[in-house]
C-alpha cells in the first residue's frame, strides 16, 4: 500500500512538475522570433487589450505563442514525424517521403483546377499576340511528376501530360516542353533539390539550353558559368514541412561567372550584384538569388550586345536568369504576385523585348494573378 502511494506520488509530481516547467519556460524563457527550420516567424506574446480579448484575438495569439515558444520545439516536431513514420505514413504534412532523401510535395488532380489553368493559358496567349516578336513559355515540371522513380510506392501525383498537351495547343509558337531533356539529365545529375521545391542549377541549365535553341542563340557549356558550391547544408521548404530527423542535406551551386559591372534594381533598391550572400546563413538558402522575390527586378549589363528580355515568372526563374545576363543589356523580371503596375506599359516601353513566361507547372495552374498581364 505504501509502495503504491510512493509510485503514485512520483508519477503525479513528475508529470505535473514537467508540465509546470514547460509552462515556466514558455512564459519566462527568452522569446524567439524566427524558426530557421520552418522558415517562418514565430508568434510572440500578444499585446493585451480589452478589445483584443473580447474579439478573442489575444487568446488565439496566446495559443500560438505557447506552441511556438515551446522548449526544444524542433525535437518535439521531429518526434511527431518519427511517430507518423512508425505507423507507416509516407506522406507527412502533404509531402511524400521519397527515396534517396527526396521530399516531394503531393499535388493531386483534385487540387488543380482545369478551368483556371485554361484561363491562365488564354491570358498568356492574349498577351503574346500583342505584337511581341520573340516569345517563349516554359512550365517547369513538378518535382513529383518528373522524379516518379523517387516517389514512395503507390504515391500519386496529378496528371501533367494533359496539361502540357493543352498548353501546346494554346501557345503554339514558343511553347517549350523540357520534360524529356530533364528526365534524361536526371539520370546522371541532380536536377531538383532533395529538400527544397526548386530546381538546381543543373535543372535550370536544361531550360537555358532549350530556350537558346528556340531563339537561335548559341549555347555555352555548363562549366562556363563557373558553378560554385556556396553551401553544403541546404535544407529547403520541403524539409520545413516534414521536419525529419537526419535529413539529407543539399548542396547549393550558383553561377559565379557573371559579367561586371552590373546594375541590379529590386523594387527600386539599387545593388551591385544579384546575390545576397547573407541568405546563405539562414535556412532559405535559395534566396541567395536576388534575396528572394520582388515585384520587379531590373538587371542592366552595359557590355552586352542583345537588347531587352522580359521575364514573367515565379521563383524558378531566379536561378535561370543569371545564365542569361551575359547576353542582354537589360533583363526585367516581373513577379505578378507582387507587381501591381501596368505590364502593358513595360511592353510599350520595350517594344523589341524578348519575352519569357516561366513558372513551375502546378504554380502556374494555381496562379491567380495572371490577369495583371493584360493591365
Amino acid at each position: 500500500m505504501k509502495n503504491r502511494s510512493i509510485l503514485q506520488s512520483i508519477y503525479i509530481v513528475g508529470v505535473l512538475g514537467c508540465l509546470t516547467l514547460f509552462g515556466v519556460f514558455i512564459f519566462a524563457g527568452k522569446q524567439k522570433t524566427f524558426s530557421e527550420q520552418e522558415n517562418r516567424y514565430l508568434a510572440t506574446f500578444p499585446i493585451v487589450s480589452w478589445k483584443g480579448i473580447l474579439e478573442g484575438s489575444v487568446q488565439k495569439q496566446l495559443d500560438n505563442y505557447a506552441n511556438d515558444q515551446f522548449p526544444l520545439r524542433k525535437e518535439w516536431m521531429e518526434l511527431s514525424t518519427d511517430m507518423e513514420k512508425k505507423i507507416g505514413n509516407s506522406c507527412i504534412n502533404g509531402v511524400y517521403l521519397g527515396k534517396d532523401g527526396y521530399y516531394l510535395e503531393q499535388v493531386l488532380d483534385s487540387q488543380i483546377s482545369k478551368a483556371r489553368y485554361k484561363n491562365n493559358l488564354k491570358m498568356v496567349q492574349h498577351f503574346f499576340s500583342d505584337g511581341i516578336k520573340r516569345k517563349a513559355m516554359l512550365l517547369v515540371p513538378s518535382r513529383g511528376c518528373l522524379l516518379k522513380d523517387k516517389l514512395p510506392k503507390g504515391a500519386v501525383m496529378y496528371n501533367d501530360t494533359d496539361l502540357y498537351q493543352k498548353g501546346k495547343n494554346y501557345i503554339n509558337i514558343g511553347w517549350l516542353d523540357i520534360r524529356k531533356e530533364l528526365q534524361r539529365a536526371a539520370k546522371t545529375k541532380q536536377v531538383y533539390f532533395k529538400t527544397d521545391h526548386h530546381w538546381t542549377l543543373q535543372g535550370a541549365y536544361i531550360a537555358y539550353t532549350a530556350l537558346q535553341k528556340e531563339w537561335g542563340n548559341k549555347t555555352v557549356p555548363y562549366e562556363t558559368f563557373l558553378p560554385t558550391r556556396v553551401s553544403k547544408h541546404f535544407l529547403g521548404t520541403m524539409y520545413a514541412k516534414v521536419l525529419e530527423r537526419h535529413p539529407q542535406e543539399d548542396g547549393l551551386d550558383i553561377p559565379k561567372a557573371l559579367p561586371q559591372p552590373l546594375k541590379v534594381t529590386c523594387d527600386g533598391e539599387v545593388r551591385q550584384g544579384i546575390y545576397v550572400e547573407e541568405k546563405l546563413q539562414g535556412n532559405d538558402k535559395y534566396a541567395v538569388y536576388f534575396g528572394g522575390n520582388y515585384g520587379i527586378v531590373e538587371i542592366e549589363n552595359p557590355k552586352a550586345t542583345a537588347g531587352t528580355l522580359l521575364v514573367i515568372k515565379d521563383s524558378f526563374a531566379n536561378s535561370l536568369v543569371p545564365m542569361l545576363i551575359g547576353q542582354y543589356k537589360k533583363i526585367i523580371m516581373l513577379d505578378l504576385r507582387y507587381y501591381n503596375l501596368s505590364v502593358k506599359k513595360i511592353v510599350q516601353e520595350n517594344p523589341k523585348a524578348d519575352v519569357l513566361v516561366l513558372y513551375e507547372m502546378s504554380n502556374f495552374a494555381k496562379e491567380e494573378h495572371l490577369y495583371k498581364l493584360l493591365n
Partner: protein
Amino acid sequence: MVFSSIIFLCAFLPIVCIGYFLLPKRLRNMWLLLLSLLFYAYGEPVYICIMVFSTVFDYTNGRIIDYCKKHGKKWDKYILVLSVVGNLGMLGYFKYTDFLLSTLNQLFGSQFSLLSLALPIGISFYTFQTMSYTIDVYLGKVQCQKNFVDFSMYVCLFPQLIAGPIVKYSCVEKQLQNRSVTIANVANGFSRFTIGLGKKVLLANQAGALYEQMKSLTDGDWSMSVAWLAAISYMFQIYFDFSGYSDMAIGLGKMFGFTFPENFYYPYEAKSITEFWRRWHMTLSGWFREYVYIPLGGNKKGWKRQIINLFIVWFLTGLWHGAGWNFVVWGMYYFLFLVLEKGIWQIFKKKQNQDKRCGKKENSLAALWKHTYTLLVVLFGWVLFSCEKTEQLLSMLKAMVGNGVKISSPIGVYSWTNTILFFILLAIGATSLPKKIADHVVPTVWKEPLYYLYSCFLLVVSIAFLVRGSYNPFLYFRF
C-alpha cells in the same frame, strides 16, 4: 480554452491543480469556480454572460421552488415551467432561430433575415445540467442548493463544461460539499486524462485530417474506395474525439475528487442499435430517458404510445446534435432502427429464451452478422450526420454504393495502403481488447507502474503533435 492545447496543459492545468491542492478545503470550490470562469471566458469572453445568467436564474428558481414547498405555496409549478421555458428559450434562441427562419424561408419563400449568431460553446450541455437541477428540486429528488458558490461551481465546472458528459445534479449533489482528494485519485484521474488526450490528439485528429483530405478529392481522384475511406475515418474521428473528451473530463473530475458518470462504453462493439445507444453518449441518452421518455409514459402505456414517445425522444436527440435537417433525419434514422429492433425482438424473444434454457451458445457467425449489421448502420448514420447539404450526402452515398464512380482510384489505393496500419490501430483502440489483454497478461504488480508509463508515453507524444501544430479541430461548436 480546449484541453488539447499547450496553454491548457502547461499553464492552466498546473495552476488549477497546484492551487487546488494547496488551498484549504473550504476555499477549494471557490477556486474551482474562479478558474472555471476563466477557462470559459478564454474561449467565450462575451457569451460568458449567458452562462452566468443561466447560473443565477436557476439558482434563484431552485430557491423559490424550495421556499414554495416549505411554506405550502402552490406556485412552485409555475416556477418550474418558468425555469424550463427559460432554459429551452435560451437554447432555442441561440441554437435554433436561424434554423427555424431559414426553414420558413424555404417553405414559404419568406424573407426573414437570419441572426447569424455564433453558438455559445457548451450551451447545450450546461442548460441540460441546470434543467436537471430545477426539475429534481421540484420533484424532491434533490435538496435545494443554498450555497451560491457551490451551485455556480456545479454549473460552470470546467472539466465537463464544453463537451460533456452531462452530469445530473443528483450525481454530484453530495460531492459538492464532501469529496476526498487522495493521491490515488489524482494519479488515476490524471492517467485517465492522458488516455483521453491521446485519443483526441493522436487518433481523432489524424483520422479527421484523413477525412478532410478524402472529402476534398474530386473527379479522377474520387472513387468508391475513397468514399469508404472518408466514411470510416469520420466514424473513427467522431468516436475518438468525443470519447477522448469524456475521458479527459472524467479524469480531471477525479483529480478534484468528483466521480462523473461514464459516457462511452466501447460503442462500436455493440451487437445491435439498441445496444449501441446504451454505450454511446450514455449521459445524453440517460437525460432524455429520465426527463422526456419516462415522464411521457415510456413503455408503460402500450406499444402505440411507446412508439410515439420514442419518436419524440429521437427527434429531440437528433435536433440536440445540431440545428439542421440532416441531424433530425439522423435522429429519425435511429428511431426507425430502434423500433424495428424492438418489433423483431418481440418475435424472437421466445426462441432466444428457449435457446438460453437449453444452454445453447450464440454461434460466432450470428455474432459476426450482428456486429456487421450494427457497424454498417452506424457508419451510414455518420454519413448522414456529417453531410449537411443534400447534394453532398447524395454524392457520398452514391460513391459508397459504387453508383457512377470507379471502384478505386490510384489515390484511393495509396491512401488505403498508407493508412492501413493506422486503421488497425484505431479499430483495436475502439474495442475493449487492449484492456482485456492488459488484464490477463500483465502481472498485477506491474499493472500500475506500466499504466503510468503508458500514460507518460501518451502525454509526450500528444505534446509532440500539439507543438507540431497538426490538424486540431473543435467539433462541438454546434452542440
